């Protein structure tokens, strides 16, 4: 950089990354970006850009350079930065509750080390359930989401029912925005339960890994291998009571899913879903123990993800509104100034401060993955227990403060200067599970490899300036059909 001559313009803080031999991606603190040639990049840093050139105007518009006063630029960038980080305005709003660890499924990748359906233990009692709801409503957040996880929550439906009714009672006084999610394999869902759930602000999140053979291979029940037939029937039953939009599904990619991504997408379309979240395996529980049987290299997942994403884009171009949720999240971060807190991928990390999980015995963990780790015997991320600790002791502890301090991308090795930082997030629990420490080693991190590859793929697609693809992406961001 040439510092000896009078500068025709000022640079504002930016980060950069080479996409390929000739393309350089430049982003500012708020995620505004530009993709330019290596030649233009050299001119930029050597102050050789013409003040009337298109590239200069583009960079100026993105507040990466300025030829006017810097102070108004700082005001503008500060406002944008505050908007991007607005998810911090709310403290913990996602409260996951595990009413029981018992489960009637036999999933090959079970990440929580399920307990037998017939077991007499591992189910929450009412005292603990009441205490959890009391703690939840001490959160300063105006929005509370209580999400029932498992085990299979419907095996402890009396506790689910108790928590919903008690939370609604408390909320008559607290007047927060309150919603519920039940994450269930749905096998035990029936008209009686749905009759109770019908008038609650409740969503159902089930698991559908794809077409019949694949779903049955990944997620057999203990009683029968054909879980596919049951879950697809129960999805429709839930829709008939709660409405179509109140029932969602998640998929997990096992080794058996590779090569079949387009058929998985077709299955989701066939079942009437308009979105899918293409998720790789998390290295917890059976998924970690059985990695040699059901796992895969992250590069294989990335190749499959790209193929599926291209297929989904084509479906949208053909007129089928169908969203890939991870891409939609990244595109919202890349293309808009809006805040998108996502517990698993934000900076600071969402552990404890955005989402938290209460186990059946009252133990509180910073995330679902932390609970999965505990099920493998490691209580590293245990915040405390609702029956022993107060809200302040759980959520304002030195432990949580220290953890969050170590989970900001802005000061993590390899992340602090990464140009994709405004779109990415920190996950100390995943770092610890995958690499043995909460900071992690980026050059070997699978999450880093995956996120970078997918962000780069999206940028390549944006760079094409293909009107059809752009319309699809904006329809995902704005949640509107392109037709």
């Amino acid at each position, binding site marked *: 950089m040439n510092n000896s001559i009078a500068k025709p313009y000022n640079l504002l803080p930016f980060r*950069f990354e080479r996409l390929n031999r000739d393309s350089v991606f430049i982003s500012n603190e708020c995620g505004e970006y530009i993709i330019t040639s290596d030649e233009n990049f050299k001119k930029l840093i050597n102050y050789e850009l013409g003040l009337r050139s298109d590239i200069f105007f583009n960079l100026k518009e993105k507040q990466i350079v300025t030829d006017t006063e810097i102070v108004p630029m700082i005001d503008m960038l*500060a406002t944008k930065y505050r908007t991007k980080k607005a998810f911090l305005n709310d403290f913990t709003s996602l409260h996951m509750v595990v009413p029981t660890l018992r489960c009637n499924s036999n999933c090959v990748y079970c990440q929580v080390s399920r307990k037998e359906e017939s077991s007499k233990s591992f189910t929450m009692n009412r005292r603990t359930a009441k205490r959890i709801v009391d703690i939840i409503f001490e959160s300063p957040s105006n929005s509370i989401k209580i999400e029932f996880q498992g085990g299979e929550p419907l095996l402890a439906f009396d506790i689910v029912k108790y928590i919903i009714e008690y939370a609604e009672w408390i909320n008559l006084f607290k007047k927060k925005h309150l919603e519920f999610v039940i994450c269930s394999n749905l096998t035990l869902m029936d008209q009686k339960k749905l009759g109770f759930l019908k008038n609650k602000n409740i969503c159902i999140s089930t698991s559908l890994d794809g077409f019949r053979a694949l779903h049955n291979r990944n997620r057999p029940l203990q009683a029968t291998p054909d879980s596919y037939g049951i879950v697809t029937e129960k999805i429709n039953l839930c829709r008939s009571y709660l409405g179509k939009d109140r029932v969602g599904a998640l998929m997990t990619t096992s080794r058996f899913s590779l090569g079949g991504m387009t058929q998985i997408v077709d299955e989701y379309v066939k079942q009437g879903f308009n979105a899918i979240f293409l998720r790789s395996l998390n290295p917890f529980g059976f998924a970690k123990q059985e990695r040699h049987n059901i796992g895969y290299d992250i590069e294989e997942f990335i190749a499959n993800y790209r193929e599926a994403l291209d297929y989904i884009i084509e479906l949208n171009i053909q007129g089928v509104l169908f969203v890939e949720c991870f891409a939609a999240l990244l595109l919202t971060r890349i293309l808009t100034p809006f805040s998108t807190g996502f517990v698993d991928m934000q900076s600071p990390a969402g552990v404890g401060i955005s989402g938290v999980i209460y186990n059946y015995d009252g133990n509180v963990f910073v995330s679902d993955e932390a609970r999965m780790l505990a099920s493998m015997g490691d209580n590293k991320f245990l915040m405390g227990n609702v029956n022993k600790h107060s809200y302040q002791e759980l959520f304002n502890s030195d432990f949580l403060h220290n953890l969050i301090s170590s989970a900001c991308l802005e000061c993590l090795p390899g992340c602090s200067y990464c140009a994709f930082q405004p779109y990415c997030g920190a996950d100390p629990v995943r770092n610890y599970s995958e690499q043995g420490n909460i900071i992690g080693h980026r*050059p070997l991190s699978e999450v880093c490899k995956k996120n970078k590859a997918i962000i780069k793929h999206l940028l390549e697609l944006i760079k094409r300036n293909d009107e059809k693809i752009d319309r699809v992406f904006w329809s995902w961001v704005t949640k509107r059909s392109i037709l």
Partner: protein
Amino acid sequence: MENLQISISTKIYNMKAITNTAYGFSGKYYIQIEPLTDETVQVSVKSKEENSPALSNFRDLFFNELLDQQIRLSVEKDFGHIRDMIVKKAFLPINE
């Protein structure tokens, strides 16, 4: 297993840029940084795997990345304070 030594002038390149560059390659290679003279360090590189690609173009890749890291530091040195002002300004309402 193949080894490679690269000597780098600390008069031209900042130590932080050298360390950041070495860190980026530490997934595939064992890397050691040692002082050579008052104004030079030696970076020793060894492949982690028996059959990993030859180190023939490693030097070129390393110096290209080193240049990028040096630019990042220059940008940070000259304009990092502006970023600090942005963040400070952004959080002003809750500090008041």
